[in-house]
């Protein structure tokens, strides 16, 4: 079907990477990568987290460090980070998938290059600038952070929804209509299921973008693990910098892994 290498952070290579010639070899390679990415990150996360726990229990920390790395604090921050990520990603899917569907229907089809173009330019905006500008406009806090993260995560899902739907073989749509399905039934029972793998690749990209950018929410009092990092950098405490960075990275890896698992689980059985 459509060409979708597992998309990266900014995902522009989804469209840009042409299909290499040997397609069977390519599938084998992807499989290898997929297997690796399904097994390695959780193991890595577990090992490094165990290392962190060991360090945390034995390290000689002073008052400030202890306060910031108290377990109850860390768990609250993780929860805030996860909440930021999931609320924003859910909004992204709720907005981008219907919009993508709309932009592949009848009259709106002509608008889709325009919308994707605008979204592409929007993606060039630095996440930091977007967050700060929205905070100046709407005030600090969780929901401003969610809005910024949602805007930031829209493009990959929108683009992949459009690509995925456009990649559905038109003869299948015709066949659906031919056996008497309404256009809504064709959409929900033929087109969307066939496009799901591509859409889910976009969702995973969005998850990774959002979980990483959520680190910056701390600058506008949106919470999350960025707090530890920010404290560490402003007080220049190496222990806090490293601890914060490691925890954020582990959470991001775990979310990426979750995205991959979701991708596998939602793939229609026939494909």
């Amino acid at each position, binding site marked *: 079907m459509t060409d979708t*290498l*597992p998309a*990266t*952070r*900014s*995902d*522009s*290579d989804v469209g*840009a*990477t*042409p*299909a*290499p*010639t040997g397609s069977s070899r390519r599938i084998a*390679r992807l499989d*290898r*990568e997929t*297997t*690796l*990415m399904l097994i*390695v*990150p959780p193991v*890595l996360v577990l090992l490094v987290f165990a290392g962190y726990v060991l360090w945390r229990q034995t390290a000689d920390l002073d008052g400030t460090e202890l306060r910031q790395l108290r377990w109850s604090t860390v768990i609250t921050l993780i929860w805030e980070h996860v909440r930021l990520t999931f609320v924003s990603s859910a909004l992204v899917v709720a907005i981008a998938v219907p919009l993508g569907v709309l932009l592949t229907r009848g009259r709106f089809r002509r608008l889709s290059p325009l919308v994707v173009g605008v979204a592409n*330019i929007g*993606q*060039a*905006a*630095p*996440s*930091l*600038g*977007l967050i*700060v*500008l929205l*905070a*100046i406009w709407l005030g600090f806090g969780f929901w401003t952070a969610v809005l910024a993260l949602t805007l930031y995560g829209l493009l990959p899902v929108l683009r992949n929804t459009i690509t995925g739907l456009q990649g559905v073989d038109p003869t299948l749509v015709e066949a659906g209509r031919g056996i008497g399905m309404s256009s809504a039934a064709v959409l929900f029972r033929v087109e969307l299921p066939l496009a799901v793998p591509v859409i889910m690749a976009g969702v995973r990209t969005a998850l*990774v973008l959002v*979980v*990483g*950018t959520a*680190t*910056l929410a701390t*600058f*506008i009092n949106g919470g999350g693990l*960025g707090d530890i*990092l920010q404290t*560490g*950098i402003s007080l220049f405490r*190496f222990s806090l*910098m*490293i601890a*914060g*960075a*490691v925890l*954020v*990275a582990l959470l*991001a*890896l775990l979310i*990426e892994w979750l995205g991959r698992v979701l991708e596998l689980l939602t793939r229609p059985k026939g494909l």
Partner: protein
Amino acid sequence: MWDFIVERRGQIAYNTLQHANLVIQAVLVATVIAVVLAVLITRAPRLQGVANALSAIGLTIPSFALVGILLPLTSIGTVTAVVAVTFYAVLPILRNAVVGLQGVDQILVESSRGMGMSELASLWRVRLPLAWPVILAGVRTSTQMSMGVAAIAAYVLGPGLGGYIFKGLSQIGGANAINYAVVGTVGVIVIALIVDVLLLLLGRLTVSKGIRV
């Protein structure tokens, strides 16, 4: 807003150039690193999955976290910014370079060897030119991403426009907060778009005539 920009035009121009400079240099270095790595990786096909997995893991690590990890090693300032931007810039190019080199038809490589080219000549005159459009696509992705990473690296006093965004943040409520934030953000978008156009032009100039579409 206009007065704000005119008053500080020298400084703004300087920081804009610094931002562009940081990104362009980092991407240049990253392109060389990525292509060399990709050439090595394509010699050992087993490594490919590993390389892709590593680059996916690398891209997952939030840039602010990498800055935090680097800080004890490279201290506050430009070095941290350069290392962080280069690190992220390598990954998309590496991925595309591996795909691009792998996509070169083996028969072509064999014919070039048959014509008497050394392995190096075949790499330089056959494989790299054929893979170049794909590599260049990776460079574009990379550049766009690096613009944002460079902005974040300004938190540890890296050069460029990110400093304005943080200044806007710290002066919220003050008269110039929004000016600073807008100048920083829009400035980054503008250079991102300009550099992207330049890369497209570079593509026109450097993609081998025979494979232009």
